[in-house]
């Protein structure tokens, strides 16, 4: 746990140095996208890794966040510093409402109902033209004069740090442990006084909030929001990141986000073969590292006789 914290801090520290070392806007753009995805992957991981249920509807929160920020900016002229937190809050409220329905379900039913919510929202965004401008999307979201990618990078880095802090606190708290208990065995969890619904809800809403923040940031950064923010392909990317890195750890999703972002970008060189190859790589990762990269590392450490460094949840606490 200390190790995990130090790695996260180290990652943030290194990332903070990046804008000083690099001026290439393209690389900065990739770095911004990687961190954006890191927030998203981390937030999904709270649900997948700590509630233990597989949500395919996480784009619901990304999307509501993005639309909230876009609408506030376009219609009410809200600046970024106000609209992005508002996006997080609105997404969290959606999380509360969607969680109230979905968290009563388990397994495949949960998987598909969360997906259904995301699709319903997408269809609403696509058809409620008066508000969302339908398929035309919302363009021209004011960037408030932020022209340099470094500024965006600083903002997304701040959001990433917040994400790490909140998830770290949650995961290593009594509440986080309760979430793990629910994930591992609902019956036991209930019998030791854990309210499975309430606990799962906490993780779910936290995940929604963080995804909403990411969505809000996305709206300002890309300066365009359309119904495709709710699309499954977005979801697939995030899932790949979480599972490739290793769910149920804090580092895994970040690693996954960075790797997938870079991979998608560097595979561009291969033109038409790009996505086929990407599919193959995803499959290969599952076959050779079924627990993700972090799972693989943990396993190696265990084999060397160390205590599992990044176990599924709990370790010595040195708050």
């Amino acid at each position, binding site marked *: 746990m200390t190790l995990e914290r130090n790695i996260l801090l180290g990652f943030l520290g290194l990332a903070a140095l990046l804008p000083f070392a690099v001026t*290439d*806007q*393209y690389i900065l*753009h990739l770095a911004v996208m990687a961190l954006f995805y890191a927030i998203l992957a981390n937030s999904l991981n709270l649900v997948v890794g700590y509630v233990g249920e597989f949500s395919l509807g996480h784009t619901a929160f990304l999307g509501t966040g993005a639309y909230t920020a876009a609408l506030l900016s376009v219609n009410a002229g809200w600046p970024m510093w106000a609209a992005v937190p508002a996006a997080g809050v609105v997404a969290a409220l959606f999380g509360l409402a969607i969680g109230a329905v979905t968290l009563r379900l388990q397994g495949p039913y949960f998987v598909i109902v969360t997906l259904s919510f995301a699709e319903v929202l997408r269809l609403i965004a*696509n058809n409620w033209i008066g508000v969302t401008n339908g398929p035309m*999307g919302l*363009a021209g979201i004011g960037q408030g004069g932020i022209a340099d990618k470094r500024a965006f990078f600083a903002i997304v880095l701040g959001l990433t740090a917040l994400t790490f802090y909140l998830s770290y606190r949650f995961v290593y708290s009594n509440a986080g442990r309760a979430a793990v208990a629910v994930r591992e065995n609902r019956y036991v969890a209930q019998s030791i006084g854990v309210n499975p619904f309430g606990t799962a809800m906490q993780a779910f809403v936290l995940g929604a909030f963080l995804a909403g923040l990411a969505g809000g940031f996305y709206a300002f950064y890309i300066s365009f929001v359309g119904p495709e923010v709710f699309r499954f392909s977005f979801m697939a990317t995030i899932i790949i990141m979480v599972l490739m890195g290793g769910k149920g750890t804090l580092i895994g999703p970040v690693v996954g986000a960075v790797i997938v972002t870079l991979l998608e970008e560097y595979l561009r060189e291969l033109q038409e073969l*790009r996505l086929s190859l990407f599919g193959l790589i995803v499959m290969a990762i599952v076959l050779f590292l079924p627990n993700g990269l972090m799972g693989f590392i943990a396993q190696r450490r265990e084999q060397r006789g160390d205590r599992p460094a990044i176990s599924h949840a709990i370790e010595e606490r040195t708050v």
Partner: protein
Amino acid sequence: QDSVKIGLVEPLTGSVAYNGKSVVEGARLAIEQINAKGGVLGKPVELVIEDGQCAPANSVNAVEKLVQKDKVAVLVGAFCSSATAAIMPVAAKYKIPLVTGVSSSAALTEQNNPWFFRAAETDALMAKAFAKILATDLKLKSVAYVGVNDDWGRGGVEEFSRDLSALGVKTALTEYFDHGTTDFFTLLTKLRAAKPDGIFVAAETQDGSILVKQFQEMGLQSKVFGVGSWATADFINLTGDAAEGIHAAVPYVSSVETPRNQDFVKAYQAKYNVKPGKYGAAGYNALNIVVQAVARAGSTDAEAIRSALAKTSYEAPNGVYRFTAKGQAYGFDAVLVRIEGGMPKVIASSPVEAPQ
């Protein structure tokens, strides 16, 4: 720098890849011809193609890469209006001219983005060109409007119904369907009940061919006309005899008999073994417009290219392209075709006028 680089962002995967590929084909042909004649500014032209998947974020990624990594002089893309809307501010930020040969949402040229040019028709312009001919030729009294549920489909329906209504044609029904819909029987049942004399359809090849086929299967009789890439061999082949007699308003059709077009069709057919369609021509035209602008600018300086683009007068297979102050193309010929004996036959042709 030993070549002039042009960045092209099109959907190469996903559900509109079909059309995106045609744009790329047209673009490739243009580059080949230009390079065969010695390129531009004494250098060969290099086309850097990226897959934007018609998704805003992916298209932005692609543009960032094209601008920052490949250092392209001009951008062409990004097909779907939503993706184009997302890359327009990026182009403006980096001050790189952006030309689209496809995206038709009227809103794009209303953004007053000085770096953006649309070398394509908008639905408003098509409607204006053909509404009258259609209303009188097909003797329409009432029309049902059907469009794919996206910006382009909705735009087409709105523009045509406005212009036709102004000519006294009644609107019997307005319906949208989602891209990728396979079964239209419900929609067609409503159509049958509404008993229009004509049906306007805004749909691309795949949706359109299925719709028209099922139209025939249901035994419907009304006259079908519309916008979309219908005047192509693919469409006719897929739709079979159900395509007989339908009308399409398109910016380009391969059967136009001008020598310039015949040359283009011959070259295209030699290279790809099919006749060019609307999107193939769009890619071809966009690239030619861009390269000619670079030639006139005399350098790859962005500002110079931009002012050269604004003064475009490009002789395309389908007429002459010029740009308005807002970057909207006009002057080229749009055509109305009827499919007869499996061939698109030109019924009317009309130069697209500059919008007021």
